[in-house]
């Protein structure tokens, strides 16, 4: 498909690159503890970008038998309105692509019954009186082909599986929801599922008692899930795009120490066993790791081909594209490596340590503070400024080194860049959450407001 398209493109435009992707998903859903639905989804699509008279245009289609001429014509019409870009497509890589396992037979071959059995096991393990349990199991098998008119070509197959469980407990007007998810390219092991069950049980048990929230400027342990509000501004500010646009507060700070010197953050598309891993990006750039933050100092921003050309630098292999629209910058696997690495654990597993204690071992010295596991409304507001302010979705009060119960009707606020200047402690509970690996972090001086 893609070769025919590129062949036609060579005759019609100055240059082109393309992505073809086919995805097959199988999903089963348990609602309130019983299996309710099973579904499949099949989708294939083709995205092309052209350079025509120095201008860039894109087009995409999900048609079953796309007509290369018509698709290229649409891309060329788009290029007529497009900006002039000095874009050079990567040439064929001299060596072979980095070897990274993205396709796991066990995942690809799991039958519908296997997926149902997996879900049923979780439903049974998590069952408790007065709780509603929803579980979903989603398996994806995909094929990707990328290529360009400069001769680069890449193909790979991938698998992914997501097992999601949420437990809801309603008592009067009190609603408690605890959620966790296994995501991997390979099927979860028994230990992975056991960890998922324990993670939910631990957080649920500690939440049964509701206590008054504290208020003031306090030490707060952000669990890997709770950390989202702190991580999101960094991810936006470390994107080459916001740097080019002048909206990144980290622009011009490469090499400058902006954070606690124990903090390193990398983007690594070559992490084994992760669904976001890939040997080549969606613009034919071979994958490699990028140090975003290195011992507290700003390392590299991430770029795709277009932003790299504009910034007169190289793409970091973070080009991502869908079937419609043009390629853009996307992170792959984002890993928080903190301290000497001894605390961060083995990143191949879903969890570094069994998730049976709350707070990753960071609460012993907290006289009064919070463990924040979920905040409501993360991503809304003025994210890149670093300022956040969110009500708690799931949070626990810590008093004299112990978890005393769940708090409600409280909001936490702070500035991500300021808070990360001094990390009060690093948890032993590093884990994958989606495509991010991090431990819990103890951050000081977080504003907590209560009603």
């Amino acid at each position, binding site marked *: 498909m893609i070769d025919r398209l590129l062949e036609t493109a060579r005759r019609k435009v100055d240059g082109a690159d393309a992505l073809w992707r086919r995805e097959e998903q199988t999903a089963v859903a348990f609602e309130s503890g019983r*299996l309710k639905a099973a579904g499949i989804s099949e989708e294939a699509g083709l995205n092309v970008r052209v350079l025509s008279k120095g201008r860039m245009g894109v087009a995409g289609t999900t048609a079953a038998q796309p007509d290369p001429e018509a698709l290229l014509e649409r891309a060329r019409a788009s290029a007529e309105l497009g900006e002039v870009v000095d874009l050079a497509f990567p040439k064929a890589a001299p060596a072979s692509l980095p070897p990274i396992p993205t396709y796991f037979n066990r995942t690809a071959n799991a039958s519908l019954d296997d997926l149902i059995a997996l879900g049923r096991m979780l439903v049974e393990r998590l069952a408790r009186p007065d709780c509603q349990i929803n579980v979903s199991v989603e398996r994806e098998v995909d094929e990707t082909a990328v290529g360009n008119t400069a001769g680069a070509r890449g193909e790979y197959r991938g698998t992914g599986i997501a097992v999601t469980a949420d437990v809801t407990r309603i008592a009067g007007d009190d609603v408690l929801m605890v959620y966790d998810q296994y995501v991997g390219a390979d099927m979860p092991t028994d230990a992975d599922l056991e960890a998922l069950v324990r993670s939910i049980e631990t957080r649920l048990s500690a939440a049964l008692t509701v206590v008054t929230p504290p208020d003031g400027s306090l030490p707060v342990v952000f669990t890997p899930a709770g950390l989202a509000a702190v991580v999101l501004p960094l991810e936006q500010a470390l994107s080459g795009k916001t740097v080019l646009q002048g*909206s990144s507060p980290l622009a011009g700070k490469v090499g400058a120490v902006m954070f606690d010197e124990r903090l390193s953050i990398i983007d690594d598309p070559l992490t084994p066993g992760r669904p976001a891993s890939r040997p080549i990006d969606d613009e034919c750039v071979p994958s490699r790791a990028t140090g975003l933050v290195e011992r507290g100092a700003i390392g590299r921003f991430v770029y795709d081909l277009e932003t790299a050309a504009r910034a007169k630098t190289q793409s970091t292999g973070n080009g991502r594209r869908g079937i419609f629209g043009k390629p853009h910058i996307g992170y792959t696997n984002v890993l928080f490596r903190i301290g000497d690495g001894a605390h961060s654990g083995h990143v191949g597993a879903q969890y570094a340590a069994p998730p049976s204690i709350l707070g990753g071992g960071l609460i012993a010295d907290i006289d009064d503070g919070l463990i924040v596991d979920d905040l409501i409304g993360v991503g809304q507001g003025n994210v890149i400024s670093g300022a956040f302010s969110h009500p708690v979705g799931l949070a626990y009060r810590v008093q004299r080194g112990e978890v005393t119960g769940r708090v409600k009707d409280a909001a936490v606020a702070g500035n991500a860049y300021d808070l990360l200047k001094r990390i009060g402690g690093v948890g032993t509970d590093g884990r994958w959450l989606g495509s991010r690996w991090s431990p819990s972090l103890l951050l000081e001086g977080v504003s907590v407001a209560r009603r």
Partner: protein
Amino acid sequence: MKDRLATAVKQSRADYTEIRVERTWSSAVAFRGRRLETATVSEDQGGFVRVLNRGCGWGIASFTSLDALPAMVSRANELSRAVLLEEPIRLADTAPVVADAKLDLDGDVRGIALGDKKKLLEAYNGAMLAVSKSIVDTQASYRDEVSEVWYVNSEGAALYQLRPEVVVSGTAIGRRNGTIEKGLESIGLRKGWRSVQGFEERFRVVAQRAVDLLDAPRVRGGAYPVILDNELAGVFIHEAFGHLSEADFVYENPQAREMMTLGRRFGKPVLNAGDNGAAAGLRGTLPFDDEGTPTQDTPLIREGILVGRLHSRETAAKLGERPTGNARAISFRHPPIVRMTNTYIAPGKAGVGFNDLIRDIKLGVYACGAFGGQTMLENFSFTAGWGHMIRDGQVAELVKDVVLAGNLFQTLDRIDHIAGDFTWNQMGGGCGKGGQFPLPVTEGAPHVRIEEALIGGDV
């Protein structure tokens, strides 16, 4: 197409079969700063099959290759039969409708040159950039679509719907040294090209606000009397109450049903709220939902009392209520689930204005515009675009980072005054639920006063 789907439905061996096929023509233009990001035309198409068998669960298939339709109907049937249920799934009765429903295209976007769409957006983007040197970045986007949706089910429904949509939005980023602020404008309607003309001033205003916010202090966290402007009050009713009124939250959960018992008092007698998918020309408007049920105006709260909820056919059957036309899917890639359409707080007494709400507030917050909102069941958060302190009954200084955090029950009960100045929001955002985002919805409300609400922020 209807005949093709009807044939496939007839050949299905399942007890109930429905097929939805969509063909969407869309175009999009985007600017980032002064640079054009994209100007493209796309065509997307695909189908969705859902079947049900007695004693079994749903079998679902979605696909982009329509040639695969008969095969997908059998696959869905196999999947349904693999899901064994003790308690059968029932669907509430609806009269199967055969109809063609073509919404007014109001200037068919398919007939407008992409270059003209670029020009329009360039003007709006330019209006933001021209405000000040402090506007360092903008994001402006134009997107339109015309979607053709065919729906056929084994009960005899056969629908064709033509649904237009157009959204223009802009974000202006103001920056001075380390301080970064933004202003957001967005216009989204189930209409066409004519409905998005002449908005330069609105884009200028939001860029000016981003600049003004650079000098504004952060609001001090704490509990205040709060007045919500129309836009934020609309987002509030969607987030804080609307999601709980979606019957899929309660239908299989006895505790949730108890919490959401019809007849329960949710607010003071001033509070009336509902959801109206049949209101003309709004972003959440649809003649029929994605199960073929006609949309309607569904009262949810009447004089403070819970009187209704939003249903699919499955949730309505389970609760012994009537379907409300709220089963919606964002595309053929997804099954229909219970969703809102155009959700509103009804106006208070005519003649009651903003001044009547603010007059006796000594210290409070006037929260305006909406960056977004999220609900986690009884708890919600919504982020205002900006705010003003209220001092001695007057609107005072501009403040930023106004985030309302709250508990649904307490907050609804604390709404003590509702103005008569109702307007529908015309924002282009969308609602997310169950992995389906963005679903076109809107909200409407007058100015609303909350006696006391929690504002996050520094303390």
